[in-house]
């Protein structure tokens, strides 16, 4: 029982970050019909910024670690937002709804940004100090307090996005554009503006995921790449553009990783995920909750 509980808790915690990452990707796809291969670079930048600024802050002001963390988190989000604005207006705006063009552009950006990060931050893995120490036990599974807090924030952010998309006017516009761009424009929705908002929100989700993963792992400039391939698998399973699908897929993949990773090996877990996707495609080519592509 203890082991199962531990694995379940583990799943919830990995899953929460996967969900955030994949949500951003699927939102950007829904609105812009662009698969952003540079999505992971927002994630990596946020984690790197926290890893670099946090020790400085601690040395200078001597606040408790969690205060520093949130200040640096805000700073990281701001940096990512600036990068997002630049990338959108310089590049992505010209390749809206162009799958192949935007693919090459975003892969170019992936390489470019990874190189720039390597240049600025060097390749050495960095570690962020623990936010909170201590452990709690849930159903017989032990969990660090900081992981619990991080998992809570991730779930809150997911819930927040869900509410934003389902309850607000902006969310309705995002959904309308994703459903049918021309019909949405006929209703007076400004497509370009909405797709910009979609891109920024999606990138913001990646940044939040990156900020949350920072205290839990060693951070290097290629951190985002592992998450990117898993996020692709998640959004295929969930259906491209589907927000509930990304949430479901994220936890499913986290479950496979947590259980197969424990009983076998982490790379077998990835292979198992791929097999799962192949089976899924045989049964439902459009994903669990996705619509068929027209």
């Amino acid at each position, binding site marked *: 029982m203890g082991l199962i509980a531990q694995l379940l808790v583990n799943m919830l915690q990995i899953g929460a970050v996967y969900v955030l990452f994949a949500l951003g990707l699927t939102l950007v*796809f829904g609105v812009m*019909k662009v*698969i952003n291969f540079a999505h992971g670079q927002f994630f990596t930048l946020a984690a790197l910024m926290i890893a670099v600024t946090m020790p400085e802050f601690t040395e200078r002001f001597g606040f408790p670690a969690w205060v520093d963390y949130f200040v640096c988190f805000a700073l990281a989000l701001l940096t990512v937002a600036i990068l997002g604005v630049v990338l959108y207006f*310089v*590049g992505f705006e*010209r*390749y809206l709804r162009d*799958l*192949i*063009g935007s*693919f*090459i*552009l975003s*892969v*170019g*950006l*992936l*390489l*470019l*940004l*990874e*190189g*720039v990060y*390597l*240049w600025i931050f060097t*390749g050495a893995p960095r570690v962020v100090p623990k936010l909170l120490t201590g452990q709690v036990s849930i159903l017989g599974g032990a969990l660090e307090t900081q992981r619990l807090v991080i998992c809570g924030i991730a779930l809150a952010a997911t819930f927040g996005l869900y509410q934003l998309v389902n309850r607000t006017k902006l969310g309705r516009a995002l959904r309308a554009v994703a459903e049918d761009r021309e019909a949405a424009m006929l209703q007076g929705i400004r497509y370009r503006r909405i797709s910009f908002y979609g891109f920024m929100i999606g990138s913001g989700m990646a940044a939040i995921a990156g900020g949350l993963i920072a205290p839990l792992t060693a951070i290097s400039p290629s951190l985002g790449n592992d998450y990117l*391939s898993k996020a*692709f*698998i998640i*959004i*295929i399973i969930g259906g*491209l553009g589907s927000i509930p699908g990304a949430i479901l897929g994220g936890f499913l993949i986290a479950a496979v990783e947590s259980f197969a990773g424990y009983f076998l090996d982490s*790379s*077998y877990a*990835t*292979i198992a995920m*791929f097999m799962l*996707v*192949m089976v899924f*495609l*045989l049964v439902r*080519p*459009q*994903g669990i909750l996705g619509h068929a*592509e027209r």
Partner: protein
Amino acid sequence: MRSARAGQIVVALAAAAVLAFAVLGDDEYTQHLLMWTALNAVLAVGLRFMLLVGETNIGTGAFYGMGAYMGAICTTKWGLPFPLALLAGGLLAIVVSTGFGLVTLRTKGPYFMLISFAFTEVVRLIYTRVEWLGGNSGIIGIFPPQALDPWMSVLTFLLCGGLILMMYLCEQSNLGRVFRAIQNNDAVVETVGIDVVQIKLVCLVIASFSVGIAGSLHAHIYNVISPGDFSYLVPVFALAYIKIGGDANVMGAVIGAAILTVLAQMLQGMGSLEHVLFGGAIVASMLVLPDGLLGGGRRLLRLFSRGRA
């Protein structure tokens, strides 16, 4: 007219080869550079072949890798003759791509792109886990027969040229017309009684066969292969060759491959700057020359002729 075009391409390729050998001489480095360019050109044309039916096949990297591993095993472990090792690479790619295509070609567009991406990454992971394939360090000592050494670059050129020509001829044939029709509107093609999935499968298998042979050739030219050589970056670079050269015809892909292969060699050993410049070149060309160099050149020509008129 069709055969005349093919003739032109053959002449152009032969002339390019002769010119390249004549101008660059026979020192080993330039010979290698030419061989790498030829391999990359096959990759780019193979990827473009699948673009004709409107699909981005990132699995190109996986089939290239399979060809390379198969060729390496044939030569180092089974001691098969060199031509058989080349053919085996192509045949393995045919078998695997048929199975892969039967499952995945029911999807299209972004789904196919992402699933082929995942496929390439998983196949690479499998190489690292299998001890027999050398795990993370790969396979070393893959040499072509010694008698072929002076002829290796010519052979590579002919073989790669042949593969490119084969794909070009397919594109110009009636089959190629069906490909284009699927790219434009697959529903219409379906209504005249053509099985779209089957045609796409044929397209995938032809492209994979070419890329598989090129992969086996890659193993014998580099003499060393490891899983890291066959990541999703292989097709990504191939796509960059196509985009930078221009995607309107085969020559664009070949020219793009030549330019970027040389650029990559010049940047080698510059560490992180290599990534920055290569990524930067891709981004810049997407922003400045959306139809690639050939498209840009054509636009420039049109501009001049209009100015004169």
